[in-house]
């Protein structure tokens, strides 16, 4: 029985070499042990048997056949049993592994099949059945060529695969097409590997075909989307280019318009120059003529009319001056010749230039008022404008205050001109310093000024780094205030 088991064990190719070796050793060990036992016994018996008592002979027989023999047998069988157990455990693991392996193959969505050396199908998994529509029974034993479309077969598709297979031992990522049972062509990616037997000889090949139809369809869709996208990009680019062309055209038009505007601006400058010179020269002569005539003593009637001419010529002169100032401010050409100036001097000069006016003048320069850093002529112009406004908009003999002192904070000097006139409506207060703005008066008998004076005054004050504003109560007069920076202390 032992031998049978041993033979059986030996006959089966068991991968666990250790167990086989043990059993092989036992095959010799057991008979040897028995033989040795018999020889020892027989030798002993032949030498000493005669001198032994029956009891000794009995004990000796029991010892050898009853104890040693069974022990050797038990020991041997125990080893064999363990070896078999071990082998069965290993075989179970291997079978389980094979089942997994087989289920991977059989359950795969890819077509997996094997070919013999003549490319005849040997195995055929479920994936292959799904993809190609052949049940295993109808394809196993057939040449793999039945799966190759006619056109590819003619081009030697299989031959080229074989060449590469035998050259490298495998083919991977080979894109081709295969034919299904119902004549459809499917795109596949082929991976084929040579199979070798235990002796290393080639026994065939395994083939994995992955159905690429969906992937290619997806790729095609992506490509189509890409193309659509590219088309849209191209279309958009075309639109943008068109827009760009339109923009360039617009730009050209703007450049042309700008050029025209510049020409107009130059024309305006020329015109201002013309006004500057050609209008001032005759005004000079008119003023001078009037002045001479008046100084020569005229009859009263003529004198009144000459005074009117002189007055109107002065108005025209101021208007021309205002227009020139506006033009200079607009062109950013208002340049200041700044130097320390005494506020008292500035006020005196402004009052002197204003001339006689029937008003109750109250001039107050706070003691210790510092010098201002200013273009004296320009500040006199501002003061003159505020003072003449005060005269214009206040009743005869009313009080006008001209007050100068350090501004709160100390860095500036504050000038203010207060009249007791009609004041300025609240809604006008913010706008009176704007260009060409003039307060509308319902009771106005005549309109004074040109709406330029306060704008020019603001620009001059701001160019000095000062601020100008008005505080007013309609009907109760107005106070115009402005600040100028103080001059640095004289070294």
């Amino acid at each position, binding site marked *: 029985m032992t031998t049978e088991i041993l033979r059986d064990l030996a006959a089966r190719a068991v991968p666990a070499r250790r167990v086989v070796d043990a059993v092989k050793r036992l095959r010799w060990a057991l008979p040897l042990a028995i033989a040795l036992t018999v020889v020892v016994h027989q030798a002993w018996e032949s030498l000493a048997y005669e001198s032994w008592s029956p009891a000794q002979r009995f004990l000796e027989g029991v010892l050898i056949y009853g104890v040693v023999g069974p022990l050797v047998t038990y020991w041997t069988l125990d080893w064999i049993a363990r070896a078999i157990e071990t082998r069965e455990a290993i075989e179970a693991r291997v079978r389980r592994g094979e089942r997994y392996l087989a289920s991977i193959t059989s359950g795969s969505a890819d077509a997996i099949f094997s070919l013999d050396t003549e490319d005849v199908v040997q195995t055929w998994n479920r994936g292959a059945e799904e993809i190609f529509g052949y049940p295993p029974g109808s394809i196993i034993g057939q040449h793999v060529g039945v799966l190759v479309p006619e056109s590819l077969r003619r081009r030697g598709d299989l031959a080229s695969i074989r060449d590469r297979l035998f050259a490298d031992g495998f083919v991977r990522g080979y894109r081709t097409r295969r034919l299904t049972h119902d004549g459809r062509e499917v795109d596949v990616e082929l991976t084929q590997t040579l199979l070798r037997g235990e002796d290393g000889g080639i026994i065939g090949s395994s083939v994995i075909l992955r159905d690429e139809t969906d992937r290619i369809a997806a790729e095609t869709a992506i490509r189509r989307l890409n193309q659509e996208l590219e088309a849209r990009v191209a279309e958009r680019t075309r639109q943008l280019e068109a827009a760009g062309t339109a923009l360039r055209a617009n730009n050209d038009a703007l450049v042309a318009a700008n050029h025209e505007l510049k020409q107009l601006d130059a024309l305006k400058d020329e015109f201002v120059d013309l006004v*500057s*010179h050609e209008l*001032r*020269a005759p*005004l*000079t*002569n008119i*003023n*001078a*003529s009037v*002045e*001479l005539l008046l*100084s020569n003593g005229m009859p009263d009637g003529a004198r009144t009319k000459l005074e009117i001419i002189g007055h109107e*010529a002065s108005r025209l*002169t101021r208007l021309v001056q205002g227009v*020139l100032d506006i033009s*200079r401010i607009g062109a950013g*050409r208002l*340049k*200041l*010749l700044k*130097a*320390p*100036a*005494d506020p*008292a*001097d*500035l006020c005196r000069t402004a009052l002197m230039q204003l001339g006689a006016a029937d008003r109750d003048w109250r001039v107050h320069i706070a003691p210790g008022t510092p*010098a201002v850093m200013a273009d*004296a002529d320009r500040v006199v112009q501002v003061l003159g404008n505020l003072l003449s406004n005060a005269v214009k908009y206040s009743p005869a003999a009313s009080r006008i205050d001209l007050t100068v002192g350090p501004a709160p904070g100390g860095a500036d000097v504050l000038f203010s001109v207060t009249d007791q006139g009609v004041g300025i409506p609240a809604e006008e207060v913010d706008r009176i310093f704007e260009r060409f703005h003039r307060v509308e008066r319902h009771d106005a008998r005549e309109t004074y000024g040109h709406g330029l004076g306060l704008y020019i005054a603001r620009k001059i004050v701001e160019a000095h780094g000062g601020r100008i504003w008005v505080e007013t109560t309609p009907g109760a007069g107005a106070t115009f205030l402005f600040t100028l920076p103080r*001059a*640095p202390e*004289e*070294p």
Partner: protein
Amino acid sequence: MNHHANAGKPANILVVDDDANLLRLLRESLEGAGYQVMDAGNGLDGIKQLYAGRPDLVVLDVMMPRMDGWETLARIREMSDVPVIMLTARDDEADRLRGFELGADDYVTKPFSLAELTARARAVLARAARPHSSGTTPPLVVGDLVIDFSSRRVLKHAEPLPLTPTEYRLLSTLAEHIGRTLSHEQLLERVWGPEYVDEPGYIKRYIWYLRQKVEDDPANPRYVETVRGFGYRLAK
């Protein structure tokens, strides 16, 4: 050339303008004020008249055809230090400054009143009439400054300073009394004229201008010193 009006003889004024009407008006006005008047309708004639008539003052229009007022002034300055008042129809500050640095003594912007022009003419003539040390005093050296009375020039580090006539008069007046303090009134009378003694504002302004050009650090002057509450002096 002596342009100083003699006490008994009325001063001679040359008026140069291309506007014949204005020439006529100026002549009448100035003659009415007691001056002798010559006139010229363009710059070239003006220079000829300057040679022939040796006027005490030139009133020169800026805007003239062919040779304009600036060029005429430059030609005049090449040969004479006769006082010049410029008439300008453009009151741009650039014009104003340019006129001063080219050696104009004053300027009047059109339209001006005849009374104003006459007053300016009187002031400039009075200034010019005061004896000054032109030609007799050797150049004065103060630190890096050289004040050359004969050529009416001031050099700093050997470079001429672009002083206006008023600035030059202010500096040369201080230089003539170097080390001594001149009061505001003294300076006004000597630099601007007796009729200006009540205009202290001029002093402060022109001292400031002068320091901007003369001093290395105008905030810490080493030449033009302030004597607080009294006046100014040129430091030795």
